[in-house]
């Protein structure tokens, strides 16, 4: 029951993100090059989350658990990599922007970079660890 509830909640969040993205794109007009990057990362995150949900649904339908001890361990590891990516992107993004482009990034941009890079690091490490087996 808990597994099914988590899956339904996950699907709801994925749909909400996709709908928000659709409305943003529909009303954004001409999309600039610097907007493509965060949209791309968001799409990668949502599609990866949908893949993970599909994998869990497949297991639940077969009578197997959606999550087990190996997956929980992978989750913890991926979370720690995501956390490290958050810290480094929070420090690195304003620093690199200042050094390379002589541009001071506004605070909300830094927040967006931290969220997107943290999420990307989490999802990539989760998928690699799940595929590798450790």
């Amino acid at each position, binding site marked *: 029951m808990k597994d099914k509830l988590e899956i339904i909640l996950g699907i709801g969040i994925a749909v909400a993100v996709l709908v928000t993205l659709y409305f943003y794109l529909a009303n954004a007009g001409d999309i600039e090059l610097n907007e493509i990057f965060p949209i791309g990362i968001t799409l990668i995150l949502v599609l990866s989350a949908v893949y993970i949900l599909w994998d869990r649904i497949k297991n639940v339908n077969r009578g197997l658990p959606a999550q*087990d001890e190996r997956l929980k361990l992978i989750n913890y590891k991926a979370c720690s990599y995501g956390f490290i990516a958050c810290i480094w992107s929070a420090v690195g993004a304003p620093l690199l922007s200042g050094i390379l482009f002589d541009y001071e990034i506004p605070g909300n941009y830094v927040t967006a970079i931290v969220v997107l890079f943290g999420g990307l690091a989490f999802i990539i490490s989760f998928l690699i660890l799940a595929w590798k087996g450790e």
Partner: protein
Amino acid sequence: MMKTRIKELRARYDLTQEDLAKKVGVRRETILFIEKGKYNPSLKLAHDIAEVLKTTIDELFIFE
């Protein structure tokens, strides 16, 4: 390096990876990675697998 006799004992009891996974309450991939030596199971999971395969942890896992 850890080797296991899970595959051999599964065959003896005519169990697929999925059957064993259902009996011990894990995903099929977990059994696959344990068999390949790519994942070290918890003591509880090792005990459960040994119980299903009617053996002991000592006989199931070989450390080299």
